[in-house]
């Protein structure tokens, strides 16, 4: 168990979120960090160091994933919080909401296979620069679950070049050996991208679920590295 920390986490609940308790459990029960839930109608985020947009199907993901949730009252506050340098982590649906809100570049499309894919995959750590991966090493391979129907990340050429230039690609889907191959790509995403951060590096969105592999009994504890990185940030 991690030692007590001053880092305070807030997990936003949108109608249709369904990974908020899992994330709470990982942070609180597994890592010993203080966590609150934040209802999507809230607009006051003072007192938090890190705000998490959890996985799920906000507003049923009707129309497009994240399209409706991004207009929730809390999102204005989240963007302001991010602008001031606050840490914002979007997991799966949270990542999709961030893209819709323009907090990160690009858009999410339906998986090429047309179905939701739920399974363990491998993820190569592409950068350790930033608060989310500093407890990892570059090139390290994590074993971590995904569960999404729309994780096919897209950005146009200019945006992609930008991401690369600024070292904003944080995770890529890879083989167990860390190779980036089409077979290792579960959803067709551009260049196997699984997670990106903003230029300032305080906002991260990723499709895989670190909260689902933070308790060793679930088959992997690699997700703890994300939390450990964050806890080091204080």
């Amino acid at each position, binding site marked *: 168990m991690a030692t007590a920390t001053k880092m305070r986490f807030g997990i936003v609940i949108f109608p249709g979120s369904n990974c908020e308790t*899992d994330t709470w*459990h990982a942070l609180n029960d597994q890592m010993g960090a203080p966590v609150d839930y934040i209802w999507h109608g809230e607009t006051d985020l003072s007192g938090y160091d890190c705000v998490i947009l959890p996985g799920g199907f906000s507003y*049923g993901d009707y129309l497009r994933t994240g399209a409706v949730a991004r207009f929730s009252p809390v999102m204005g506050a989240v963007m302001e919080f991010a602008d001031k340098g606050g840490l914002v982590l979007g997991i799966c649906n949270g990542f999709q909401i961030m893209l819709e809100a323009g907090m990160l570049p690009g858009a999410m499309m339906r998986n090429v296979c047309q179905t939701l894919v739920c399974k363990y995959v491998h993820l190569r750590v592409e950068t350790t620069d930033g608060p989310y991966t500093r407890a990892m090493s570059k090139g390290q391979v994590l074993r971590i679950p995904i*569960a999404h129907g729309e994780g096919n990340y897209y950005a146009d050429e200019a945006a992609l070049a930008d991401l690369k230039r600024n070292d904003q690609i944080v995770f890529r889907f890879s083989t167990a050996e860390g190779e980036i191959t089409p077979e290792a790509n579960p959803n067709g995403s551009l260049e196997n991208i699984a997670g990106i951060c903003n230029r300032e590096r305080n906002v991260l969105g990723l499709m895989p679920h670190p909260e689902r592999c933070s308790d060793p009994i679930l088959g992997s504890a690699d997700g703890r590295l994300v939390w450990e990185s964050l806890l080091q940030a204080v």
Partner: protein
Amino acid sequence: MAIEARMWRELGLSDDEYQRVLDAIGREPTPTELAMFSVEWSEHCGYPRSRPLLALFPKEGKYAASTDASADAGGVEVRPGLTVLFKMESHNHPSQVEPFQGAATGVGGIIRDIFTMGARPIAVLDPLRFGELDEPLARYLFRGVVNGIAFYGNCLGVPTIGGELRFEEPYKGNCLVNVMAVGVVETDKIARSRAVGEGNPVIVVGNSTGRDGIGGASILASHEFGEDEEKRPTVQIGDPFTEKCLIEACLEALASGAVVGLKDMGAAGLTCTTCEMSAAGGHGMDVDLQKVPRREPGMEPWEIMMSESQERMLLVAEKGREEAVLGIFRKWGLNAVIVGKVTGDGILRVRDNGQVVAELEAKALADPPVYHLPTEEPAYYAEVQSADLSKVLQPNDMGEVLRNVLASPNIASAAWVYHQYDHMVQTNTVVAPGGDAAVLQLKGYTEGIAVTTDGNGRYCYLDPYVGAQLVLAEATRNLVCVGAEPAGVTDCLNFGNPEKPDRFWQFKRCVAGLADACKHFELPVVSGNVSFYNETLDTAVYPTPVLGVVGVLEDVRLHCTIGFKQAGDVVLLLGDTYEDLGGSEYLKRIHGLVTGKPPALDLDRERAVQGVCLAAVREGLAASAHDCSDGGLAVALAECCIGGQIGASITLPADPDGVRLDARLFGESPSRIVLSASPENADRIQQMAAKRGVPVHLLGEVGGDTLTIEAEDGVRISESVAGMDAIWRGAIPSLMSE
């Protein structure tokens, strides 16, 4: 409007039943009342044909069971103060018509049965049956059903952790889509589906009411208004987002303490909830249909009373605290409208536009007639029972047989299905789908639970009594393999037309077999569902009781999986092998035969074998455990190899009784389990088995990248693990890509 014979007949009431209605209320019913009787007394709601037989099921076992007949689901207490509730239901007919929505709304309905009792839904399982997968219709239905379950279950954030896949000709015209849901609740917080407390407000919550699923009632309208069928879709559309909000809002409302009773609107919607909550509480209700939120103008009172629109609940709140309750639903963006109040007179009074359109004693509605239907042994039965399987020729190349059987969609990996389901959300899934049973942790407790569903229509067709017992044996065997002690059973009984005596004979024999086996295993049947009339053009489905069984792990960390773990581990077989070819997958797949007697089952031996396996896993002695069932020993060994990505060298036990080689490899004798363990632990397991009088055979050793199986006359099977894996994993995806 005067009631005419064609109206009650069209609604499914017999002339005798209509006479009973007249006797019960002492006057001619109104159209709305007639509609209400027709749905409450239907097989779907009232079980008039199956109820007398269902009474045979035991209600008690080692784990304290909650089996309140008026409740939506039942359960077992898995540790002091903590109850796991579960139930299975069918959505067969809707899925045959519209596979995606039929299956999706099936998930929605069974989940409501769980949270209506105050339990947090923690798992879904989906046993499915279709026609042979090389037919386009079967593929269309299969894909649609799986996509529908994924659409609904994934959105709810309830993991789908198990199920079954069977493809057989008799399910061609009637697919079986059964769905089981599991929830967890503190025992003293189980919510009740009843209306009590005169003056308490009655509240409709959730989606608006439309003309969904009221096909039969069109007779009432067309009589007067001549409206066209077009306007009355019988297919319901699922809205998982609303259901997700409904789960959260209902659990929050129940936790507030201001809710007196809650019931989900499933079949027969408002009729069923108003009448059954009133009857269960010994009270009445006075409701005004004009207040019910609706999505279409001009709905008639009987349409509102019969509508099966999804994602709705009926709630009775404590008078004076209704605002708090309404506020919770509003916060979740849901409709919540007071439509009436609880009364003390036991009368269900329904008003519309200031007129009383129904005024009935709730008890009268909730007390359907009971029928004792005739039975007759089916014509085919004597023939299959006396089939002589000794004439079946044994193939030479058993390796080829193994490859062929592994490619059968009834045996092949179901990963194509369960990778489309979020089976990890809620972070409790310790053993994911793909094993004998799924294992869930219960956060905050040492204990865990395991869940499995099983059915075998082929066995039950060949011998319904033995077949049903074999299903229970297999389900419980699956649980001990993961280290769980079986604790309680739910069932979904899928049969043909009960009014045909040969079909009802199958039903009666299956229920008897199941009841006897449950008693023998000291397992309560806590809930269940009956689905009759699964037949078209005189072809009925195989008699298919599907069971869902929940087991308890004393310590969830001490669980086991099917894959071999380590080179050098010893492979053991618990139990003996007999010449059991009848009803086997081998016989069907290789020889095109569905005949013979299903394997004989000795319930004492089965329990003894299971006892050894459970002890071996609980004491941490077993490295892997896998039950031997469909496909026999060769398939079980192949699956152990594939699961562990490692080979094994096996020598079949010497066989004193001269059982034929194909039966030794592919026969489906029950009461057998393949274990692997380190040499020291294997010794201890063998001693344990000997002490309990359970036969145990040393089969060989784990290692290498090939499965070799040797009989007296030499190696008969030698297959690479990678090759078997590719066949087994690729079979369903390749059929589905056609």
